C-alpha cells in the first residue's frame, strides 16, 4: 500500500512520516510532494492508495488537487491534514469527496484511529 504526503512544509512532511511510523504504519511505502501540482504529476505516474494533503499550499491547494483528481476520474482515498478545520472547510472537503480531516497538531493516536479504517496491510 502506498501513501502520498502532500505539504509545502518539509518539516511537516517529516512529522507526518514520523507519526505514521508511531501509529504503526511504518511498513507502508511513502511518497512526498510539496504542492498540488507536484502531487498530480506523481499520481499520474504512480497512483497511491491514500493521499494525506495539506489544505493551504502554493500553486495548487489541497482542495484544488482533490477537484483535479475528481475531474480525472481517480478514486483514491483522500484526507486533509491541516491547521484549519472550520465547519465551512469540512463541508467543502466532504462535498469534494474527502474522507477525513486531521487537525494539526495531531498525535499518533489520532493517526491510528483515523487512518486505521483506510489502511489495509
Amino acid at each position, binding site marked *: 500500500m502506498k501513501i502520498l504526503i502532500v505539504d509545502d*512544509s*518539509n*518539516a*511537516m512532511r*517529516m*512529522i507526518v512520516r*514520523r507519526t505514521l511510523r508511531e501509529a504503526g504504519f511504518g511498513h507502508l511505502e511513502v511518497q512526498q510532494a510539496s504542492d498540488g501540482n507536484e502531487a498530480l504529476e506523481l499520481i499520474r505516474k504512480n497512483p497511491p492508495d491514500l493521499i494525506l494533503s495539506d489544505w*493551504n499550499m*502554493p500553486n495548487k491547494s489541497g482542495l484544488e488537487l482533490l477537484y483535479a483528481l475528481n475531474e480525472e476520474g481517480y478514486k483514491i482515498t483522500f484526507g486533509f491534514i*491541516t*491547521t*484549519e*478545520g*472550520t465547519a*465551512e472547510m469540512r463541508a467543502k472537503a466532504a462535498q469534494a469527496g474527502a474522507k477525513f480531516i486531521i*487537525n*494539526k*497538531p*495531531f*498525535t499518533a493516536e489520532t493517526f491510528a484511529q483515523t487512518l486505521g479504517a483506510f489502511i489495509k496491510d
Partner: protein
Amino acid sequence: MLQTTPKPDAIALSANVLLELAESIWSSLLELDIQRSDDPVTEWPCDQPLLTGRVVVDGDWQGSILLVCPKAIACKAAAAMFGVSPPDVAETDLSDTMGELTHMLSGNLKSLLPGPCRLSPSSVTEGYNITMGNRIAAQVFLRSEGLLLQIILFEREKNYENPDC
C-alpha cells in the same frame, strides 16, 4: 482538547487559550516543555538571537498572529521535527519550522475568530520584528527549555495602515 467552535467574543481571547494551543503543539509534535512565564518582561535578553513568525488574517476579523521565539528553541523544534540533532539543522529548515509553528497556531486560532477569514502564508524574519500600533487582542509570554517566547494577536484598527497587519 482544542476548542473549535467559533465564539462571538473571540477578539477577547485569553492568554490561557494561547497557552493551551502552544502546549498542544509543543507536546504533541516537538516533545519540548513549555509553560506560561509569569515574570514581567521588560526587555528581551540581548544575547539571544530571535526569530519572528507572522501570519496575517484578513476577512471579517483583520489582524496578525505573531510568534517570537529564540533561535535556540526554533532550532530544537526543527531538530525534533526533522529527527536530527540541533547542530545539523539547516537555516532553511529553521525557517520552515518557525513558519509551520506560526501557521499551526494561526490555523487553530482562526476557528476562534468571529466570521469567515483567510490566513496568509507565514513569513519568518530575524529579530524581534514587531511594529506596535494595533490593538493587542491577546498575548502570552511562555518559557520553553528555560527561554522566553511570546505569542501576540494584533487586531487591526480601522483606518490604520500597519505592516504587521
